[in-house]
């Protein structure tokens, strides 16, 4: 055959060529021009895994770790690889039934797909952990145990100081956008954990890994060349005395209130008790959320750090400061006498202010006997000082002293959300009474620490440190130094001596005399510490709740030894009734003894035991607690009724009464309902259950 169509071979070649050119053009676009595919490929195959360094520890003054890290063990499951195991045996080990097993497996698959590991059970209890660990080889590949670091509290104390970790929320992420948090991370929410988050968190590392199409890890990328090492969190050194802290918490058990002890020489906080407290371990581990909501709804407010977040009228402890102001202003001398016939009549006889011990006093004895009239007179002189043209300016002058003593503003302690307290100002009175329409007599009770003045326990303790130091203080703080240096300048303000106002030493001596007298012959004489010269001041604070007078707060503040003060301390027992000397003073005396002598003398042990065992939970709180418990009971009852109905699925056939009578007891799913007893008709729980205190177990332990 002749090759008459030969020219067509050229067209065929052309077709081939054009097709190849089109393909090469597309390849050129994909591989050379468009850059996005490299990124998409990395998104596909590269996993940047954050490596969390261990958080820093907190050590007490003897370098004991009081906030530590420990490991908890989670049982992980990869559902796709857990097929064909001896389910019955496994369930026996785990103490669950097969329904529960399948439920958890399905949850795991829904959460993380069957190819990726999910938590089967978090924080295994020790026995279960041992049992599983022993038999793990039977469930190879499908199950494994993963370690997870959590916070631990070896001394089980200082929950209010340490604070807790919480999952970061969107607000937190926004606030600390450049700190590198991602949702799901944990960060310090309160206490030291929050204040020193930057130092404690350390530096996170990154491990670059390769994953496959099911997101299974296949190994490290570029043999780890792009990995970043994690740097462990820094340890914090404090002056806390953990044994003293434990003693304080024990003494304050079943009471509401606070103890704050400061080393006046350094401003370091030695102990800071807020009661009721909780087992700090409660807010770690698997049941964190449950415990948190329990604590959160407890009417005794265990999560409130009363040492810095509650402010009280300081009561008679405030008188020491009034004495200082009077002496410094020169309106009195140490020898000035005022007599009290039973009440203060400086504001007319219509409304006298009571006085406990009638008699004639000079400064020291006035303090010693806590004479109201004496200090009302002192403050009246300060305010009505002719040196000042108006009461406005004299009160402002008085304010200046108060601010200098650290009252009425935040001290700057290294615990977040510190309260300010209040100091009455001319502006405040102008608002209440109208400008020029008020005078000393409107607020004379301020002179004895009642009425418009409030202070936090920390401020009162700091006041003591100021008096002990004779005119200066260092802002109270928990952390003295940070391992590897203070890189974030968190501690700068705790290195400065504050000398707010120059007051001669002799004036302080007079106040010290009075305070020593308190311990020897005055209102605090029941709280003497054998062998130590303590200067103290009691306070008995009247208080009201919604206009109803409540039992008095018992206040006591002190420093010791007088000659060379090593501890400035205050204690408040809320609504204890009686006087400051009754409860707060003995507690303080035991604390001082423990701190200075490192032990409590045998003959004082009974006092310690008595103080620890007295239950002074305010009646109002008990009332709320009971209300809450019965409310909870009602809720549980309703829930139970609902569950019973759900199982029956026929509301009409059975009346509620019949259900209550427990006729359907056999039908209900007993496992899922808490408190499955048939509902009782009495709404008030029996005596024993009235105090199902969340941390009862723990307080008993201490």
């Amino acid at each position: 055959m002749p090759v008459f169509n030969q020219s067509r071979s050229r067209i065929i070649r052309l077709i081939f060529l054009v097709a190849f050119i089109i393909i090469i053009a597309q390849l050129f676009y994909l591989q050379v021009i468009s850059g996005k595919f490299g990124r998409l490929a990395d998104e596909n195959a590269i996993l940047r895994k954050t490596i969390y360094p261990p958080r820093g520890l907190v050590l007490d003054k003897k370098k004991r770790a009081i906030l530590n890290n420990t490991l908890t063990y989670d049982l992980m499951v990869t559902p796709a690889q857990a097929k064909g195991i001896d389910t019955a045996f496994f369930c026996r080990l785990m103490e669950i039934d097969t329904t529960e097993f399948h439920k958890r497996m399905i949850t795991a698959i829904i959460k993380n797909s069957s190819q990726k590991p999910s938590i089967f059970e978090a924080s295994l209890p020790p026995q279960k952990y041992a049992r599983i660990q022993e038999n793990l080889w039977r469930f190879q590949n499908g199950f494994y145990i993963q370690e997870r670091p959590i916070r631990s509290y070896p001394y089980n104390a200082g929950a209010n100081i340490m604070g807790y970790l919480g999952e970061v929320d969107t607000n937190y992420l926004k606030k600390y956008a450049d700190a590198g948090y991602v949702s799901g991370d944990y960060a310090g929410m309160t206490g030291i954990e929050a204040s020193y988050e930057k130092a404690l968190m350390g530096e996170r590392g990154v491990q670059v890994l390769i994953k496959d199409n099911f997101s299974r890890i296949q190994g490290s990328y570029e043999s780890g060349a792009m990995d970043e090492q994690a740097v462990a969190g820094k340890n914090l050194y404090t002056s806390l005395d953990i044994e003293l802290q434990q003693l304080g918490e024990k003494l304050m058990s079943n009471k509401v209130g606070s103890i704050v002890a400061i080393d006046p020489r350094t401003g370091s906080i030695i102990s800071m008790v807020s009661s009721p407290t909780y087992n700090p371990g409660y807010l770690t581990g698997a049941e964190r959320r449950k415990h948190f909501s329990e604590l959160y709804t407890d009417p005794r407010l265990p999560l409130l750090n009363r040492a810095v977040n509650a402010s009280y009228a300081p009561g008679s402890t405030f008188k020491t400061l009034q004495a200082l102001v009077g002496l410094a202003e020169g309106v009195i001398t140490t020898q000035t006498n005022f007599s009290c016939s039973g009440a203060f009549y400086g504001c007319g006889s219509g409304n006298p202010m009571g006085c406990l011990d009638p008699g004639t006093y000079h400064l020291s004895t006035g303090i010693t006997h806590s004479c109201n009239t004496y200090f009302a007179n002192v403050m009246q002189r300060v305010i009505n000082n002719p040196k000042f043209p108006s009461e406005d300016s004299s009160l402002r002058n008085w304010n200046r002293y108060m601010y200098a003593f650290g009252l009425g503003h935040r001290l700057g302690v290294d615990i977040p959300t510190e309260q300010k307290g209040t100091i009455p100002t001319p502006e405040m009175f102008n608002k209440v009474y109208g400008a020029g329409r008020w005078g000393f007599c409107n607020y004379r009770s301020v002179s004895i620490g009642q009425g418009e003045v409030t202070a936090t326990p920390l401020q009162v303790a700091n006041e003591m440190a100021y008096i002990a130091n004779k005119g200066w203080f260092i802002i109270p703080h928990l952390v003295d130094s940070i391992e590897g240096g203070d890189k974030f300048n968190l501690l700068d303000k705790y290195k400065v001596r504050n000398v707010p106002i120059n007051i001669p030493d002799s004036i302080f001596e007079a106040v010290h005399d009075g305070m020593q007298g308190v311990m020897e012959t005055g209102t605090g004489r029941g709280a003497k510490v054998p062998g130590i010269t303590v200067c103290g001041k009691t306070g008995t604070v009247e208080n009201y709740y919604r206009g109803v007078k409540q039992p008095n707060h018992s206040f006591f503040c002190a420093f010791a030894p007088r000659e060379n003060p090593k501890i400035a301390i205050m204690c408040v027992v809320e609504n204890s009734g009686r006087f400051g000397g009754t409860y707060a003073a003995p507690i303080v005396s035991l604390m001082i003894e423990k701190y200075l002598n490192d032990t409590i003398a045998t003959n004082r042990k009974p006092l310690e035991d008595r103080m620890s065992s007295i239950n002074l939970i305010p009646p109002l709180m008990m009332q709320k607690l009971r209300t809450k418990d019965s409310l909870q009971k009602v809720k549980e009852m309703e829930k139970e009724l609902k569950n019973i109905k759900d199982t029956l699925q026929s509301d009409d056939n059975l009346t509620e009464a019949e259900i209550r009578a427990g006729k359907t007891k056999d039908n209900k799913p007993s496992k899922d309902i808490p408190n499955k007893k048939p509902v009782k008709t009495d709404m008030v729980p029996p005596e024993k259950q009235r105090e199902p205190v969340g941390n009862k177990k723990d307080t008993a332990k201490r």
Partner: protein
Amino acid sequence: MNQQNPAISKGIDWSLVGIYLLLVVIGLTAIFAATYKEGDAVIQSFLKFKTDYSKQFFFFCAALTICFFILLTDSKFFSATANLGYALGIFLLFLVFPFHSRIKGTESIIKLGAFNFQPAEFCKVFVALALAKYLSRPETDFSKTRSQLIATGIVLFPAALTILQSETGLALVFFSFFIVMYREGLPSSILLAGFAVAALIVATIVIEPNTLAIIITTIAALAIYSLRRQIRRRRRVLTTIIFFWFLCVGIQRFAVPYIFKNILQKHQVERIYDLFGKDNPYLKKGEGETVEMTAKKKESGSSYNVRQSKIAIGSGRIWGKGLLKATQTRYDFVPEQRTDFIFCTVGEGFGFLGSIVLLGLYLILLFRIVTIAERQRSTFSRCYAYGVAAVFFFHIAINVAMTVGLAPVIGIPLPFVSYGGTSLLTFSILLFILIRLDADRQMVLR
């Protein structure tokens, strides 16, 4: 061995053999890169034929043996047995219907012990030979429509059987034989008409139906206007224009929707629409598919394959990531990467340059075959050579175009490179019969 036996090696085109060996080696490397996992005992698994690359190597050895025997065969044998072979091929295709085994949604595979045999793949050899035989008959006058129809029948009959086995991709390969017919004198107008219909179908998919109808009508009106003088002289021009207008609108409005709805399977229609980045409009709303479900399906369907394939190739950039550093192909992001999507491994591992080298090799192969075809004295050899070129071209172009997102995903392998015993054997036999025929190019075969 061949050097020692001048009788066999005489006249053999060594360049083709060289390209063939190169391509097979590239294929083995790519399969190795795609399936090797860290820590595999390479030599051990190689000897035990447990891994895909060792299996492919085994197929390669088998192919070499068969090819050696082909080279020993008298070239007259092929033309003499062409018709018989065609009958055998058709018989095997029929045999599939009662004996096929269900593997991955195809009904085209017969299991012979450990082997999976796919007649549709192998049938290409017989069709190429049979077509060559028919066209080279002295009594065939290919300028006659009857002969053209018979030739078309020879090609499309196995294609129809293959479609019945749900192997649309393999069936489409048979259309490549039109290139042979074109070379042998099929009128260009038919080829043009083919392109026109293809363009129309693409337009139907891309452009909204009513808009397209208006466009077609406008073109027809313009044609009538510009040709008004001719129309005045010859009425037939007008009739032709109206006929074509009618045909176009008919295809666009009725034929294409009918085919998509009733003839093609749902996933195939989807793949075609995916290619143009469009949603399949022929999915009935009432089929219980929510928008999310459709989106999810897209994630896992053929568009997922193409997207992953594009990511793999695109991330290779100019120089490639290196043989075993290609993350996308090594960690199974691209489905079917050993077989139909093997080009991804090359594209990601060796980059743009590597891809160019591979495509260049293919282009040289195709041009070389065309050159060889043109130097044949016998029509049989020439037609066969064009048949081989056409089949190779179709496979290469569609396969690579599919991995880079230019063609719909139809499962056809890349010659010599894709993993698969049948395809490697088929392509080797196709090529070596050509080499054998070419060695005897001085002979005129009947």
